[in-house]
């Protein structure tokens, strides 16, 4: 073995040793400390905002779960937290916990980065009624170890990768162009993730909602529930079926980071960095394959990843669904481009459906609205190129893409359709909501220095402090440049296919920019039919169409680069690059920095600190439910029953119950009713009827003279499980197809003819 091999083995062995040490530490005894305290508040003696604290105590650095035993007469208003005067907030990460009267015990996690001896439990009283904190315990958990393991593995992989890359001479083999592109991609990744390099989260409209989705994944996985259908702790433990309606496939990464042990802010930042990096790399790869030009792809990727629309959606609004849609769109565009432009006779053409179907499937499972728009433009594209569409081979690939996307999404689509067809939810009752008044003014599309404004309802506030809803002047420049090319018939450097694609890109961009405006007759379309009403209303904001304009114009920017760089006169290319660079800085990067300048910084550590009540537009509630009523409580019976040993569980509960009467009794549990809840008398195995109560809680019907232990819980219908199996099989099949070698038609003919 050569020296390099030895070094590598030693290197890997050291890394393995570190991993082993951390893994062993998981089995060490976890310390637990129990403290008694005497913090009693009453309305008579204490004013709102009164606070008390426990005696100081010492803890070594580590991660802990604090459990508080208390009694409270109020919901939410009273709080507890761990505090230290000596440590700054970076060294003690805790967001505290809210107390509920229906619970006698709550727990929350803290991350302590320094040994300290002045920790104390601090409670704050806001009434009404009495509050008494009786005791609390602090138990070590595995979060620190999980985080250490994660970083060791990441660092090891990174270092090994770099080491092998250099040792095997790959770095030296890189051409100058590749090196420039890599450097450019590094800068692009940096700017795409620019606001993530603080140690906080920039607050945005939908942030808490998406963080709750991640918490739902974490809570479910920690309780052995997979896949997640109802986020169990949402709405004070009543549960919320957001995952059924709003796919969370990619969000599992963030959920896993929480499971590993990262706090909410850290997992948010790591996840968002991953998505930003993926957006840059996916857009670069997609545009590179479309353009067959690395510099053009780099330019398109930079413009796309730092685009006004992406910055607005990702950092100003924290619209994660659209953020994922933006990540996937170039992939889908490339999928269509490949199917329509490649020669069906080439090897691997039959695999072309893979890219498109995976892109579409992930889009469906991430953001249905973007999927809706892509669907519309897919139909339009198929009609536009109807000759090509109906070429047998191409049509087959398109059909395969659609079918494969549906199969890959079966695990999501079946529950979604099940609820949509059998239930009655808020989202099914919003078709009267019009959107035209939310459209943009033409001026929005012409502004260079868009700022992180607060207002999105143009009809109320006009352009005053308007949110950054636009495309920015750099993409306008691209469009104008292309119009100039069309007007003067300049298309040097572009093939016929590329020229056609450019025209299509420009057309779709103009069309969607028009559709984003308030002058577009959305109201008329909405009033035309029930289906149109539902579809139009679900769009919510016409500016969402700019996501299509965005990807199209960025691709077009790359096409124009290809054209100007092919011309003999390099001056034009220089002018183009300079203009693009200046306008990208003036528009895109200005908005990024303005967002950092004006955005509110928040730090959430444990999920209890942000509460569990926020459900945004409440679209996935059963129609008529009032979420403000959802507070923890013991089961409530419609008649006289005897209850004992009540225990609230994750998406379920158990209670020993006796109905001495001669009539049926409804026993209401603090769980929001969704199809799938079941109840059983565990003493006899008898199934009990479960219904939705008037307040939409889970009601178990107790027969007369019933006595036994009732367990109620959520269980997926069998056909959801079948759908999950279909998805798994489809994924396995596609992986198999992806790795199978294909031969071209020409070769196949040769093989058949035996030559």
């Amino acid at each position, binding site marked *: 073995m050569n020296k390099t091999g030895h070094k590598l083995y030693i290197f890997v062995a050291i890394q393995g040793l570190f991993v082993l040490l951390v893994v062993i530490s998981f089995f060490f005894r976890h310390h637990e400390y129990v403290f008694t305290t005497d913090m009693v508040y009453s309305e008579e003696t204490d004013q709102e905002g009164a606070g008390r604290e426990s005696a100081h105590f010492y803890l070594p650095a580590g991660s802990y779960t604090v459990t508080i035993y208390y009694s409270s007469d109020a919901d939410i208003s009273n709080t507890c937290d761990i505090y230290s005067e000596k440590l700054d907030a970076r*060294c003690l990460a805790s967001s505290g916990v809210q107390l509920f009267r229906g619970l006698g015990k709550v727990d929350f996690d803290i991350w302590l980065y320094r040994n300290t001896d002045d920790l104390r439990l601090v409670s704050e009283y806001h009434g009404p009624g009495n509050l008494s904190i009786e005791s609390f315990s602090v138990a070590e958990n595995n979060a620190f170890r999980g985080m250490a393991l994660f970083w060791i593995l990441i660092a090891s992989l990174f270092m090994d990768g770099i080491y092998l890359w250099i040792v095997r001479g790959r770095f030296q083999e890189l051409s100058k162009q590749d090196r420039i592109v890599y450097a450019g991609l590094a800068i692009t990744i940096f700017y795409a993730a620019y606001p993530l390099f*603080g140690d906080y989260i920039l607050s945005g409209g939908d942030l808490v909602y998406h963080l709750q989705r991640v918490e739902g994944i974490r809570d479910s996985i920690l309780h052995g529930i997979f896949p997640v259908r109802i986020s169990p702790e949402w709405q004070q433990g009543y549960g919320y079926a957001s995952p059924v309606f709003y796919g969370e496939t990619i969000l599992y990464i963030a959920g896993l980071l929480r499971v590993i042990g990262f706090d909410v802010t850290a997992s948010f930042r790591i996840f968002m960095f991953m998505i930003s990096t993926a957006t840059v790399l996916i857009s670069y790869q997609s545009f590179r394959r479309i353009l067959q030009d690395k510099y053009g792809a780099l330019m398109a990727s930079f413009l796309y990843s730092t685009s006004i629309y992406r910055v607005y959606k990702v950092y100003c609004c924290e619209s994660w669904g659209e953020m994922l849609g933006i990540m996937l769109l170039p992939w889908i565009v490339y999928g269509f481009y490949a199917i329509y432009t490649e020669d069906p006779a080439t090897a691997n053409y039959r695999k072309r459906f893979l890219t498109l179907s995976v892109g579409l499937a992930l889009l469906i499972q991430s953001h249905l609205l973007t999927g809706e728009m892509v669907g519309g433009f897919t139909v339009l594209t198929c009609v536009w190129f109807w000759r090509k569409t109906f070429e047998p081979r191409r049509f087959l690939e398109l059909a395969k893409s659609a079918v494969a996307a549906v199969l890959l999404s079966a695990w999501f689509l079946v529950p979604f359709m099940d609820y949509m067809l059998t239930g009655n939810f808020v989202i099914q009752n919003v078709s009267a909501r019009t959107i035209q008044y939310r459209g943009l003014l033409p001026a929005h599309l012409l502004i260079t220095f868009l700022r992180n404004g607060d207002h999105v309802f143009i009809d109320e506030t006009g352009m005053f402090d308007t949110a950054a809803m636009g495309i920015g002047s750099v993409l306008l420049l691209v469009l104008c440049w292309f119009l100039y090319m069309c007007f003067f018939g300049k298309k040097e450097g572009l093939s016929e296919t590329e020229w056609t694609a450019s025209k299509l890109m420009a057309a779709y961009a103009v069309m969607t920019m028009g559709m984003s405006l308030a002058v577009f007759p959305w109201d008329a379309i909405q009033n035309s039919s029930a289906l149109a009403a539902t579809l139009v209303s679900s769009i919510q904001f016409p500016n969402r169409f700019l996501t299509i304009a965005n990807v199209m114009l960025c691709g077009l920017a790359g096409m124009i680069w290809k054209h100007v760089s092919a011309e003999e006169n390099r001056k034009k290319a220089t002018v183009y690059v300079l203009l693009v660079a200046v306008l990208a800085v003036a528009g895109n*990067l200005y908005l990024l920095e*303005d967002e950092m300048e004006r955005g509110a910084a928040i730090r959430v550590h444990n999920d209890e600190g942000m509460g569990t009540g926020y459900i945004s537009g409440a679209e996935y509630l059963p129609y008529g439910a009032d979420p403000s009523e959802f507070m923890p409580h013991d089961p409530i019976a419609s008649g006289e029953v005897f209850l004992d040993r009540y225990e609230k569980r994750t998406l379920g509960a158990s209670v020993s119950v006796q109905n001495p009467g001669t009539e049926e009794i409804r026993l209401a549990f603090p769980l929001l009713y969704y199809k799938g809840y079941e109840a059983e008398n565990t003493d006899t195995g008898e199934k009990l009827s479960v219904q939705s109560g008037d307040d939409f809680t889970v009601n178990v019907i107790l027969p007369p003279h019933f006595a036994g232990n009732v367990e109620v819980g959520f269980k997926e219908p069998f056909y959801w499980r079948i759908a999950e199996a279909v998805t798994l099989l489809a994924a396995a099949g596609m992986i198999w197809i992806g790795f199978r070698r294909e031969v071209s038609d020409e070769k196949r003919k040769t093989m058949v003819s035996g030559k």
Partner: protein
Amino acid sequence: MKNARQWYRENRVQMLVVFAAAIFVSLPLGTDFVNAGQDTAASLSRIKAVSDALFWVFPIRLVPLPQTAYGYSASVFSADLFYLIPAILYKLGFTIRTAYKLTVIVFQFITAYIAYFVFREIAQDRWAGMTAGFLYVLCPCRIYSIYGAGHLGEMFAWTFLPLTVWGMVRLFLEKEYGHTAGILILGYSLVLLSWPVTFWGAVISFLVMFLLTMRESITKPMLLVLIKFGLGFGGINAWYLIPMIFRFRDASAVAPLLTEHIREYALYLNQYIKIFEFGGDRVNVWESGLTSAAAVSPGIAVIAVVVFYICNVFVTGKQDRKTNKLLTTAGIMMILSSNLVPWDLMQNKNLLFSIILGALQTPAKLAVIADILLITGVAVVFARMPKSAEVGRYAGAVCLTGFLTAQFQVGRLLTTKGFIRDDQILEWSQIGYGVIAQESFFWRISEVITLATVAGIVVWRMTGHAGEAENGR
């Protein structure tokens, strides 16, 4: 005289450009008010106090005040030497506003001259010196010091900082020992007498560069320069240093010991690469992240050149030792100024740590040093470029970028920042610094040491001993 004329003839175009930057950056003074920064009250009051003490006590030393509401600079035991200029102007009958503004204008031009001269010497290239000088004068962090914070002491320090870098570069990177001790003594003394917080930052950068180049630079002539520097610097500044050392027995008597957690005042690294400075003045970035954060960056033009250099190394493999060392030192200073360093471990531990933290005031102050090192790096990068017309275009683009970003920042400062007019200026200059009139025996001794050292150096220079020994030639 002939040499001076020759120098002027050779450098007039470049000087004109850098002076244009100084004129531009003085634009906020063309108003009938003074920007109300967090240190403005302390600056104005120091002028008033020094002016009041003129002719009845010398040297004038002001008693630091509690930090409360007067800004962070209020509680620093500072030499206040350059406050004599506005104080004398005020004594002569100018209003405090005019005295303040005239001082700022004069120092803008001195800064421009020193910056161009030093960067040109370091780069050995006029155009590179001009580019770096231009960027230095328009440095967002410097603009913030002057107009955002209203910190006159720090502005004086910015003027003389290039001299300290020049001395370091000569000593550690160029191994030029002739006159180096003199440059170091001059640079560090002027910075110390301007603003001690900046001085301690400069000392740290000196140590960092020394450690980075130690293996190759420790030679007998270098040690000789170091000894001369130490003795000369200590002697000249004894009148201020010795009292300061005595006061260090109670660190809080020299500088504000932040009662809050010091790490909250350290920077995020991405503050260095900000393109648009919005005129914010928050220094505790923990509270609100980068919302309205004070400018600390050297400007995106500087960062762009540094990134270009790094990318060029990645693409072509061509490196330059001098640039590498300068940028590495700058990088270390950037990290030291950031919240990546666990500064909290030093807080409330012992007297030594308290002295260090008190002297530094906040880690963020190290950004000043990181910025000048980055700008020096830019000068060297330009000097190393192959001479062609394209280099001129690059320099033009970099200067234009620096100008536009400074334009943006100055515009924001003028249009969004609070201001005070004459009646309020009088109010703001009344925070009442005490003057130390009754000096102890040791303080008097320290003044004698300073006088003796100055006299010794003058005699030594006049007898023509200076160059020979230092050169080692």
